[in-house]
């Protein structure tokens, strides 16, 4: 049974970090990820089942880990060795129950909600965040009857999606896949849920100008989520959604998914200025300078020092910059944030959502299924690889934009091919 295993190895970690300076994903061959033969993980407690992955995506956070660029912040909420892969569609090996209480017969298709919160960890009573349904904010990620791990795919006890031997998941982590949804649509549901959470967590008001920085998977899914949720009244409709997209295919997709306009990154600030009818402090040529007004909300789906600085330059005074892309240690001039009283907010994972048009809080994943179906987000899956070609797959994911791709996934059924 083929499994991609990520081991704690400082020399390999350092080598990956060094080589990945040549390009994201390039260092995987010398890094801590290895293809091994491994048995399925053991079910840790009652309420857990085996899941056989069908497709498992390669996420930006996976790339950061493989490149050795992840923040050391995560060290205590990860346990080694782990099997990566938290974007998963697969089938349950036994009869089970989904997070929403629905019965799941053996062989049913499921999508994994990977956060290992209090319910999965057998912690009673659950932490306040889990009690409120905000599993992404769980405070017990290193405790309970499994080892530390913020999500499946970063925990030594659960396995992960990048394995033909499968993973184990708690019923609170499972969502049945509707018939109408293909596997490629379904494997995007987890990142769609992140996008839904980011959109519904941002203080978007009707008529706002919203800028989305970056048009990789997250940026495009934020655009898709915003487009769909606004169209069904789940969130107020912005007057303008401007997407910074470096590559032509990203621009096309951003427009198809609901962006009012999609422009290369270096043109986004000009478009925000024009649509927010702002002045620029930098004069005619100073479009990197701060705007007098700006976007009401900027959703940064990159998380780099440059994207954060760009976001701060184009958000209006008292506006919000929502960080959806996973940042690491960054150096950014926060003077504009302080002076203009800009709110810089993180947007991580999912849980339950309130907001416009919702009487009760609704599971983020339930909304994500809606978005995935309505927007056919599986169109973002550009290529799948067998696990044996993991170096090619990771290199492809690391250069996805440049190579005309968006989301790269492992087709685990091809695992031993």
């Amino acid at each position, binding site marked *: 049974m083929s499994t991609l295993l990520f081991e704690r190895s400082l020399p390999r970690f350092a080598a990956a970090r060094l080589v990945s300076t040549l390009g994201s994903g390039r260092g995987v061959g010398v890094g801590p990820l290895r293809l091994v033969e491994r048995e399925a993980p053991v079910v840790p407690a009652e309420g857990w089942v085996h899941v056989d992955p069908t497709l498992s995506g390669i996420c930006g956070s996976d790339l950061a880990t493989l490149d050795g660029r992840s923040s050391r912040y995560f060290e205590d909420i990860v346990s080694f060795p782990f099997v990566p892969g938290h974007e998963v569609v697969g089938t349950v090996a036994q009869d089970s129950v989904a997070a929403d209480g629905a019965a799941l017969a053996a062989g049913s298709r499921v999508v994994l909600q990977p956060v290992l919160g209090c319910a999965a960890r057998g912690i009673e009573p659950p932490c306040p965040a889990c009690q409120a349904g905000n599993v992404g904010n769980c405070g017990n990620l290193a405790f309970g009857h499994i080892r530390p791990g913020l999500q499946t795919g970063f925990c030594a006890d659960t396995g992960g999606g990048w394995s033909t031997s499968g993973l184990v998941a708690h019923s609170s982590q499972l969502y049945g896949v509707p018939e109408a949804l293909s596997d490629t649509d379904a494997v995007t549901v987890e990142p769609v849920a992140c996008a839904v959470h980011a959109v519904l967590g941002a203080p978007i008001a009707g008529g706002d100008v919203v800028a989305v920085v970056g048009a990789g998977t997250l940026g495009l899914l934020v655009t898709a989520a915003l487009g769909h949720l606004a169209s069904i009244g789940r969130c107020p409709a912005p007057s303008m959604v401007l997407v910074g997209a470096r590559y032509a295919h990203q621009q096309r997709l951003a427009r198809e998914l609901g962006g009012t*306009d999609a*422009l290369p990154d270096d043109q986004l600030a000009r*478009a925000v200025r*024009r649509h927010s*009818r*702002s002045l620029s402090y930098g*004069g*005619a*040529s100073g479009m990197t300078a701060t705007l007098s007004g700006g976007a009401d909300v900027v959703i940064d789906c990159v998380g780099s020092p440059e994207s954060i600085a760009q976001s701060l330059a184009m958000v209006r005074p008292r506006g919000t910059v929502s960080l959806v892309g996973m940042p690491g240690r960054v150096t950014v001039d926060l003077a504009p944030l302080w002076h203009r009283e800009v709110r810089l907010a993180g947007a991580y994972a999912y849980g339950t959502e309130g907001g416009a048009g919702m009487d009760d809080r609704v599971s983020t994943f339930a909304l994500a299924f809606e978005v995935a179906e309505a927007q056919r987000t599986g169109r973002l899956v550009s290529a799948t690889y067998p696990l044996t070609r993991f170096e090619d797959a990771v290199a492809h994911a690391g250069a996805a934009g440049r190579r005309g791709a968006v989301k790269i996934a492992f087709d685990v059924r091809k695992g031993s091919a």
Partner: protein
Amino acid sequence: MSRRPGFVLEVDKSTPPTLFWNGEGFMLETLPEGSRVIYAPEPMKAIDDPYRAIRHALLHPVGDRDPLPALLRPGMKLTICFDDVSLPLPPMEAPDVRQMVIETVLDMAAEAGVDDVVLVAALALHRRMTEEELRHALGNRVYDAFAPHGLLTQHDAEDPENLIHLGQTDQGEDVEINKRAATSDLLVYVNINLVTMDGGHKSVATGLASYRSLRHHHNPQTMRHSKSFMDQPSSELHSSNWRMGRLIADSGVKIFQIETTLNNDTFPSNFQFLQKREWEWSLRDRASFAASSAALSKTPPRIARQIFQSIKSPHALTSAQAGEVEAVHALTTSNVWAQQGVDVEGQTDILTMGLPYICPYNVNSIMNPILVACLGLGYFFNMYRGKPLVREGGVVIMRHPTRPEFHPGHHPSYIDFYEQVLTQTIDPVQMHKEFEESFATDPWYVHLYRTGHAYHGVHPFYMWYWCAHAMAHVGRVIVVGGDAKAVRRLGFSPASSLNDALEIASDVVGPSPTLTHMHNPPILMSDVH
């Protein structure tokens, strides 16, 4: 020896290669046998004493106007408006005609005891001129006498305090112009009529107008039905300006129009070969061409631009006429045709043109892709009377590097137009409907227009509308040697060579098309029969 008229050459085996402008450079192209090349008439003889001729014009006005001195009196309010940096092309060697005319007008005003005099650069929505440009146009004496006292102003189409709405024409066109000029006892307008489009009622009705007023004739509908801009009776643009001009006159605004024409002696002595017929190039001309071509091919575009933009043309005055607007303009038009007109028999399947480094809107600036389109399709294509040189459904082939470069200070809204409008649509009607107003009223563009040296936010739209007639008329536009991405952004087809372009054109006009090349500049106007 008397000057030779314009000439249409038929290319045969013995014809040497033809000069094509290519932005900040030029090259020789071999045209297919049977092609026609249109050459401008040789320069008209310059007036020996321009000051005397100007004075004579002011003392002997045409139409229903008294001589200028009779219109001047102590205590009156006099406003002298003048054409801006967009004329002439290239900028002329000092003294500029405007300087000569304005000095003469000011002498007469001083003799009459007029002391309330203000000068206004008639910018319309063009960029404000720099001090250096104003000094060049007006001379140091005029500049130093007026500018320090705030009496040398530049029309501000966004200054509500200094605009006056005079009414609407019978077609519902708002007429809103510069208040100081409109409320003066006498408005003297000083024109340089480089082409027949310039002057007439367009001087005041456009040069001193606001966006509210200009939008009535600077729109796709009017532009598409101006056939051509250079032929006033067939130009909707001019019909609208004429209606406005007559309303301005009926409102009591007293205009003393001064129009001047220049010969087409365009380039200084070291570039004289550029205005000669190739088979008449001397050994020195050939050497100049070879040396300058070789040097330019190794010169970075930025430096080449500086070199060309520093060229001052030896243009010389060929006529000056003054008085009532329409009577003056009729004389002027006739004089411009005398210098630039060439009789051409029949249309052509393919019209070729080499586009030079300069157009009215990039003096001391950068020729961006939108201006390339405007120069080729807005100006060169429209240099006709009767019918277009190229037949309906024919092909225009332009040569220009068409680099996606912009002057951020002069053309800020052009950048956004290129990035945010042309990526959505190249249809003048659609962009007029969906984008124009937001650009026209954008507070940042307004700020930069009023306080910097930026063209108005709406200006790139006008440049695009300027192409509307050509776009509706021709079947394809091909740009040779242009940046392929930029050329495609404009909706044109890129070609790497003239032969490549001719092959692409054959899809539209068939395998054995007729071809005509406009050898321009020097500026020429075709009278197509």
